[in-house]
């Protein structure tokens, strides 16, 4: 008789507890500053729903998708010390749609950001054209800062054919796109000329009086305008200020740098951290004084709310995340915005039918339906949703020569829907989505705050 036929006596019962009273979960990987792909990976049960949401995987057959980039890559790394991050991680556009898809709450975008950070810091050749190009694209604020000093020259030079041909050949920046125009006057210059915080306090006080609110009401917000509304579309920043003042809020525009979104997407986590430190420090001081941080760009609010606390450990970072809001969202929570919009109407320039596209980063904050639902009852304007596809540009992604085609293929569905929509003016909260919408349809693109200003501000 073999041993197999008479198993040794054992207490083991498959349905009885076998961990014992003394079971203690072990901290397998003690705190360390190394890149760690682990958080949440064990919750992934491979349902692949994230993959069906990935706009890149939908058009790019070589991209293995979010499930591979996150939890699977973590497992490979754990079972093989020499496993390196797969270079396909650079094809992820950081739209973060996978986060919203996962029924188990696996923080996929955090894993991708971490993996990309490790790939860039440890595997990428710092002298390669790709690295240099990505770094220039990711540090858009620096280029924009310089360009804004000479906006007319910059607008000409950046779209000067031969120069763009050279940029494509040497740096891999596509020559298919038009560079966004730089404003003649930045938002911050306008803000300073207008009288800054002192003037805003006056305006807010006057509005409170007009509305019959106590003059000393504690209504104050710190505006995170981001690079784009500062250098390129100051009209969005101005609309934000005017709308908030109309509701009696005093606005401040604290010192700030790039939110870091293009840096996360390119794995430049050191650059991102430097900028985040400035932003967190100025915002957290204001939060202590009772301010809330308000952003008009949904990628900026996404960065402050989610990516900062996921990736960095900076003093005050959680406090800033908890007190950051998207500009329209904040008013929906604290004011009777719906009622005010229902009672209002628009005429003139903004009495339009808008083809609205919800940016992926607004989707992740649960704001993708906000503009459509808010303006439903506004007389004089119509806002039509052009569907849930990704615009395809994803910040710097669509600017890369090798990604341009893919970016347009992803955007195809949105372009078609825009064409079928009634309106010939586009609307979105995201500056780069706006760029793509304009590029693919030729429409002029506005921000919901501009419509809100037209409706509510005298």
């Amino acid at each position, binding site marked *: 008789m073999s041993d197999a036929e008479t198993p040794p006596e054992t207490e083991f019962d498959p349905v009885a507890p076998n961990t014992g009273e003394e079971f203690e979960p072990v901290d397998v990987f003690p705190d360390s500053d190394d890149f760690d792909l682990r958080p949440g990976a064990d919750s992934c049960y491979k*349902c692949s729903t994230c993959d069906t949401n990935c706009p890149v995987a939908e058009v790019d057959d070589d991209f293995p998708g979010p499930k591979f980039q996150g939890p699977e890559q973590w497992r490979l790394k754990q079972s093989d010390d020499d496993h390196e991050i797969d270079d396909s991680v650079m094809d992820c556009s950081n739209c973060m749609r996978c986060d919203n898809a996962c029924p188990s709450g696996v923080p996929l975008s955090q894993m991708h950001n971490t993996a990309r950070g490790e790939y860039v810091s440890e595997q990428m050749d710092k002298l390669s054209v790709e690295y240099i190009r990505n770094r220039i694209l990711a540090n858009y604020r620096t280029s924009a800062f310089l360009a804004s000093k000479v906006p007319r020259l910059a607008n000409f030079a950046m779209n000067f054919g031969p120069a763009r041909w050279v940029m494509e050949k040497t740096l891999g920046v596509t020559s298919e796109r038009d560079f966004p125009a730089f404003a003649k006057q930045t938002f911050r210059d306008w803000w300073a000329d207008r009288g800054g915080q002192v003037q805003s306090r006056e305006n807010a006080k006057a509005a409170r009086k007009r509305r019959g609110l106590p003059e000393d009401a504690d209504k104050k917000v710190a505006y995170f305008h981001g690079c784009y509304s500062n250098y390129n579309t100051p009209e969005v920043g101005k609309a934000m200020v005017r709308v908030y003042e109309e509701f009696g809020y005093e606005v401040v525009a604290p010192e700030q740098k790039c939110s870091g979104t293009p840096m996360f997407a390119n794995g430049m986590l050191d650059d991102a951290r430097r900028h985040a430190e400035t932003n967190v420090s100025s915002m957290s001081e204001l939060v202590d004084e009772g301010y809330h941080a308000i952003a008009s760009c949904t990628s900026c609010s996404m960065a402050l709310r*989610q990516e900062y606390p996921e990736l960095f450990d900076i003093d005050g970072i959680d406090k800033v*995340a*908890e007190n950051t809001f998207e500009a329209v969202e904040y008013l929906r929570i604290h004011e009777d915005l719906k009622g005010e919009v229902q009672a209002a109407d628009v005429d003139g320039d903004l009495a339009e039918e808008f083809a609205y596209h919800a940016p992926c980063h607004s989707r992740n904050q649960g704001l993708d*339906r906000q503009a459509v639902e808010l303006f439903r009852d506004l007389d004089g304007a119509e806002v039509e949703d052009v569907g849930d596809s990704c615009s395809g540009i994803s910040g710097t992604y669509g600017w890369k020569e090798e990604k341009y085609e893919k970016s347009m293929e992803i955007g195809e569905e949105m372009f078609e829907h825009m064409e079928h929509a009634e309106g010939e003016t586009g609307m979105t909260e995201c500056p780069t989505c706006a760029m793509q919408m304009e590029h693919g349809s030729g429409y002029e693109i506005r921000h919901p705050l501009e419509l809100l200003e037209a409706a509510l501000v005298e």
Partner: protein
Amino acid sequence: MAIESEVLVIGGGLGGLTSALAAAREGADVRLVSYKQSTLRQASGLVDVLGYTPDGDGPLTDPYEAIPSLPETHPYRKVGVQTVRDALSLFDDAVPTYEGEHTDTNALLPTHGGSIKPTARYPAGASAGLASDTRDTLLVGIEEMVDFDAPHVAAHLDATGVPFDVRGETIRFPGDLRADAKVTRYAKLLDTNSEVAVRGRMVPAREALAQRVNPLLEDEERVGFPAVLGDDNPGAIRDTLSDHLGVDVFEVPMGPPSLPGLRLEDALFSALDEAGASIETGNPVVDFDGEDRIEKVFIEKNGAKIPNSADQYVLATGGFVGKGVESDRDGVYEPVFDCHVPHAADRYDWFEGELFGDHEFARYGVATDGDLRPLDASEHNEFENLRAAGSVLGGYDFAAEKSGSGVSIATGYAAGQRAAQEAR
């Protein structure tokens, strides 16, 4: 202040969506909030009402006939047969691409595992595949999609005694997609009918697919594919394939991520949008204010708590899988409002030793009164303005009975309609 509505529905699955739709059609100002995207992406897209009795008898021919004999605790008994019928009418109206409303009798549909499932409503794309249909069938598997092994599925179906001959063949999908391509890749390729290379010649994808299947077809009168035939234009794709093959084409529902589930999700969200409801997904409800009445709930966004207030609330957060019911070593609980979940005190009474045994946990969920309001341990209403719908409810085992969608639709409809009436 808070974000306000008359009826606030928590949960974006079939129960939550039906509930919001019923309330909106009743004229209420409705807001639906869901932690993540709808779990319909995980669903087959088939709408079962009742396939088997709790004792395992079945498949049932007429589900409505069996409802009055269900145990009193069963959600169908709380709402009654007429409500189940009314709720399905609402569904039929909102999702016109579904079939099965012409009869009370359950349809029998082949599954991707090769079994036969009794179901009440099914997508038009599955209708040519009915197991009661006697036409001979060819199942076509795709080499890279290991979830659907066509010869194996055919053998299983044959063993169930279906009244037709069935055979399985496996092909390479045209277009050389990667070995583990996403289901959306296949769908997109067929939706756009993009050209793919076939023996050096460029051919539209639908035609190329038909060309792969044509030589395999013998005298079968219908061909079944795994459910990858398009996301936006499934009808047009089936028509093109039918024309090229000269036979009817159908899809066999697949596991998650499921295209029929995605299409159903799209249809219900558009119906909800048309009815004027507000929808927000991406963040969980984590807390609430109120004692006997719920005053407001809080949605968490990375630490920020966004207040949402309403007159009436519907809890449709799902069961154990959807995380609307959770358990730990101390017990079973409902995490949002901490509603009482009746369960055995000893954890070892929650389940059976056998994998497919009669597990008690499968029936765990909140208990309600006849108005679907959750009850506490002493059988009093937890809150006067809260109703529950869908798999968060206890007293039934949807997996064994094949009643998941039907209970979600029926209780969602009842809860939404009553909430709206009370909020008016």
